[in-house]
């Protein structure tokens, strides 16, 4: 336990005081539902890591000199990063706040996200170059036979079997991870699930490439490799964009970045119910899992009581478990560039 952390939370009766430990994200104690989701997500990511490692080994053993298989192997290797990043981020974010880390360690998620995204982007570019140049040089990929239990069989069949093995798992895992990513508001998990869901296409492209070689079409392998490389690059670009936006403290959005997070409207609606406020605005940023909210209020009269502020703060804290760090300040005039009116939608509580 961190003494600084205790001091911080001890002074404020409205803060949900929590010891660090299992099922917690730093300062934030998770509701039972999220605690269960987190447990399942961690288990699922460990299963993913083990499965992907088996894929990496299997594909390495059979890849031979097929470019499509090489690219698919590197993709399998790269897809180890998001589950590892998720586990690292969750582990790291569990540490509490301290004087040295006054916002907690939630940004570990963003750091992990950017790292994974850059790896994808760089690899995508390299593989497009590598596959493209092989195609331009008209390299004919040699795939010979392998001897298994006294039988000589074409190695291409083994490659196809390996690709079917690596293609089936991620689709199932991706579908299982998606609802967890939403419930936990975890963007690394979302990115991972999203990539997993599209993984069968990689495997399918590699199978097409190998079958193409089998039919005497030497370019099929390079073409398949190029398709897979392009999908890695596409993932890389969209992930870098997302990670960048998070680091720039854009307004908090939903787990899949599809819209502004509805809790922002709820915060503004809550300020409107307080009779002592004439105008209010807020800015909410996503720290990774949890939000950091600053609420600006312009009071009706010349003075505001501590009670009024605390009542509003606890009302806002009660809106969502993600709202852990809420600062309310009193100003004479609202600053520019902050959201001041809800978008008219009220989420059911």
């Amino acid at each position: 336990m961190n003494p600084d952390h205790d001091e911080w939370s001890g002074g404020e009766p409205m803060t949900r005081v929590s010891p660090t430990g299992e099922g917690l994200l730093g300062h934030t104690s998770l509701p039972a539902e999220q605690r269960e989701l987190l447990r399942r997500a961690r288990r699922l990511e460990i299963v993913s890591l083990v499965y992907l490692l088996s894929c990496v080994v299997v594909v390495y053993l059979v890849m031979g000199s097929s470019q499509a298989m090489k690219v698919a192997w590197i993709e399998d290797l790269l897809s180890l990063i998001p589950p590892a990043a998720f586990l690292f981020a969750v582990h790291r974010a569990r540490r509490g706040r301290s004087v040295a880390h006054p916002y907690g360690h939630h940004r570990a998620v963003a750091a992990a996200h950017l790292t994974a995204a850059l790896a994808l982007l760089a690899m995508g570019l390299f593989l497009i170059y590598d596959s493209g140049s092989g195609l331009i040089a008209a390299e004919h990929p040699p795939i010979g036979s392998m001897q298994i239990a006294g039988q000589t069989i074409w190695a291409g069949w083994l490659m196809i079997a390996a690709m079917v093995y690596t293609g089936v798992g991620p689709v199932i895992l991706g579908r299982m991870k998606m609802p967890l990513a939403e419930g936990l508001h975890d963007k690394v998990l979302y990115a991972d699930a999203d990539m997993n869901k599209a993984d069968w296409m990689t495997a399918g492209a590699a199978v097409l490439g190998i079958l193409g070689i089998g039919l005497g079409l030497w370019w099929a392998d390079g073409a398949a490799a190029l398709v897979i490389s392009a999908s890695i690059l596409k993932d890389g670009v969209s992930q870098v964009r997302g990670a960048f936006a998070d680091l720039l403290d854009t307004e908090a959005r939903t787990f899949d970045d599809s819209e502004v997070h509805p809790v922002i409207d709820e915060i503004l609606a809550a300020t409107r119910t307080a009779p002592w406020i004439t105008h209010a605005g807020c800015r909410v940023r996503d720290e990774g899992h949890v939000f950091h909210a600053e609420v600006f209020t312009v009071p009706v009269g010349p003075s505001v009581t501590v009670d009024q502020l605390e009542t509003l703060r606890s009302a806002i804290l009660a809106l969502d478990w993600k709202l852990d760090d809420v600062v309310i300040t009193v100003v004479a005039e609202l600053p520019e560039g902050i959201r001041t009116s809800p978008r008219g939608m009220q989420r059911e509580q």
Partner: protein
Amino acid sequence: MRLTLALLCGLVILALGGCGTIPRDPDGTLERVRSEQSLRVGASDGADRLEVHVAGDGGAEVSGTEADLVSGFAEELGAQIEWTVGGETELVHAMERGELDVIIGGLHSDSPWADAVSLTRPYAESTDPEGSTVQHVLAVPLGENGFLVTLERYLDREAE
């Protein structure tokens, strides 16, 4: 998505329909050897595992382990061997130009030519004077997978 699936199904059916003929050669080496009944073999002079005797009329006679192997292979395909004798580099370049079907020359599995020609799986192992194990391979044109697999099947049978 649906297009990829349809393509995949189509190719699988195509592949299964022609199961015996997979893999095929992009440049049709195996078919050519069979139809012309001629196997163009390059023998690297000075290599171990084969001996080249240059006859007085400029013709050459090749003998030794690898020469015997490739003769048996030619026989199985119903082809006559057309020998070319030269240095390893010369033979590899000739193969890249499509002038040779097989190279024998005491090649090892870690040969630097692996980017230019397809090496077979090792057909034998031996110990070199320094005591390390070397694996012996033959070479065929790069990416002529049907021909490569046919040769490897033959080598497997010979090894038994």
